[in-house]
């Protein structure tokens, strides 16, 4: 990283309770522009819950979620769910992929640009009349979709029905769809789950490319340590909803608390670096 770090998202004292169960407990950290911030932790640590709070699917029990957009500070916990995406520029993917399965790949990406297109179609009036203003906007939307399809290697599948894609392609399509919204912060919930090692390595390159070219922040939940350790600028470790560590890959790897959380009391071996350490890998079926 060169230059000064620009804060993008400040999470302060985020707490989420489900009657009795504290899924996220007083969590604070900051995600920066042009950085990849990974959130890791054993199953049930509360990672997906953090995303659901950030994107308005859950209303946090306590805490402040501030998106810093230029001079403005947007408090996410006070915004309506869909506005967090449209106004604050938060885009996300889901742990169990949520595509518009019956629609084509291209249509999925066009739907992601709904708000811009809706404005250009003057709430459908210009669109119904086929005015050039709307047609130009639609062409631009298709170009943007084409750009991301190219980037994610899905261009040959553009006219496929999304539900018919192989699993790896579906995951990448979901990322492309999130990127088509033109986000400030991209939240990815286990993007490498179910990918083979080659696909997973490609994903690393892709995420680094997005970080550098688009200048956006990425928040990444991942169990695959080869991804996390390889590309993260900052890692936040959760255990039972509490933050137990926060730092660079090297710091996290050496942190005894992290090792204990992952491997239990008895084992004290340091976390294996880079390769095939799939710690606690599993895909439990949490919704969203």
């Amino acid at each position, binding site marked *: 990283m060169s230059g000064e770090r620009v804060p993008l998202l400040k999470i302060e004292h985020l707490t989420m309770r489900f009657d009795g169960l504290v899924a996220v407990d007083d969590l604070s950290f900051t995600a920066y522009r042009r950085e990849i911030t990974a959130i890791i932790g054993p199953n049930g640590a509360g990672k997906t819950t953090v995303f659901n709070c950030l994107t308005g699917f859950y209303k946090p029990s306590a805490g402040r979620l501030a998106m810093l957009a230029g001079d403005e500070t947007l408090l996410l916990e006070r915004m309506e769910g869909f506005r967090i995406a449209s106004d604050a520029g938060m*885009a996300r993917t889901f742990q169990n992929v949520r595509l518009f*399965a*019956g*629609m*084509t790949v*291209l*249509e999925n990406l*066009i*739907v992601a640009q709904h708000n811009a*297109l809706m404005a250009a179609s003057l709430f459908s009036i210009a669109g119904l009349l086929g005015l050039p203003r709307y047609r130009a906007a639609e062409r631009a939307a298709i170009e943007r979709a084409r750009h991301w399809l190219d980037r994610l290697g899905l261009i040959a599948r553009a006219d496929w029905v999304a539900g018919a894609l192989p699993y790896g392609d579906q995951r990448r399509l979901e990322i492309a769809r999130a990127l088509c919204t033109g986000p400030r912060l991209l939240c990815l919930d286990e993007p490498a789950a179910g990918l083979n090692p080659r696909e997973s390595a490609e994903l690393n390159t892709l995420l680094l490319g997005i970080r550098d070219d688009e200048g956006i922040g990425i928040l990444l939940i991942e169990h695959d340590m080869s991804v996390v350790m390889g590309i993260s600028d900052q890692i936040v470790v959760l255990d039972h909803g509490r933050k137990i560590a926060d730092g660079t890959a090297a710091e996290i790897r050496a942190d005894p608390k992290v090792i204990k959380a992952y491997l239990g009391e008895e084992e004290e071996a340091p976390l294996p670096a880079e390769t095939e350490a799939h710690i606690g890998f599993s895909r439990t079926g949490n919704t969203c």
Partner: protein
Amino acid sequence: MAVPPAGPWSGLVRDALVAALVAGLLALPFVGLETYDIGGGALGIRTHFDRVAIAIAAVFAGRFLYRLLRQLYRERPPSAAPPLARIAAWGNRRAAAITLVGLGFALALPFLPMSSRYLIDLGTTVLIYVMLGWGLNIVVGLAGLLDLGYVAFYAVGAYTFALLAHNLGFTFWEALPLTGLVAASFGIILGFPVLRLRGDYLAIVTLGFGEIIRIVLLNWSAMTGGPNGISEIPRPTFFSLPFARNAPEGTTSFAQFFGLDFSPDHRVIFLYYVILALALVTNWFTLRIRRLPVGRAWEALREDEIACRALGINPTNVKLSAFAIGAMFGGFAGAFFATRQGFISPESFTFMESATILAIVVLGGMGSQMGVVLAAILLVTAPEFGRAFAEFRMLVFGAAMVAIMVWRPGGLLARREPSLHLEPRPTAAQSR
């Protein structure tokens, strides 16, 4: 499974025997015994064992033949798709040609040699249901919101026109835009309370909404005439030329203006073209809006509401727009219905109507415009053909629905046309 030498036959016979036994057990009390009045309020019992025997034999033969045919069918190469699917695939491939032929036929219908007043009337009824089907298709097929009370908007449209005509002297053409507007408002009124509901819950609330509208119409006698309905609703005019034998003072009738002999058929033909035009407008609108952001958002909402929200789409607006626009077309159709009949009463807007319209959409294949036409023709004309065996009409109707849902669970012409394609890049290597 090991099959003994005599296997296939003995298996078939055993299966048919079991079916016959079940049939016999059921037929014995239901068919075999008949109570009759022996006078003085007492009942006697007659037996009909011959009928029981016929039932048993029929079930045995039917089951045997069915299994036999299935077995023969299975031995054929797997490439042979079921006939219904093959017909549907053919229809989808030739969609453009079929549309043109169908449209030509619809336009020419009143002037075909075999055409009659009865046929044109039937065509008008079919087109009303086509229009209603297309309208409901927006809500159910595109937006995926199961609406069992669609007839409410049809009723609102009809009564709006009738009341505007009676109280404020509106003509059909003046009232038409307003009926759509009022029906759309009712769509939004229905939409608000059901924003959070989906699937079965939504279906039940919309069903209730349909009944509420009907009951209000029935009981608000001062306004709606209650069960007596509203009569003497003005007929539509041809650019303000009335269809009448003797035009009122100071006006010319349609026949006089064109120097024709008066014929009551003129109005029937005119009504036919009016509903054809209204239906075509509905279709044009739907096809067009499917390619616009709203239409795509409807479909996206049907696919996954949570993903929609995560993309910054306001689900409230999307749902309300679907309800409003679907209701608007229902309202137009209602106004047409009122002017065609000249008389409306709550009896025309029962749940049965909602069920028929929904059946047209589901049977045709959700979201398929051509499927709606096909299903409307089938459902509206079938009872006409069935007049001979009127008592069994509902039975045949039900059996046909079950059969179609078994063989074509997605509907007759279920196939979704993508709303846009990525045209091949000029420089890209040509593939396919």
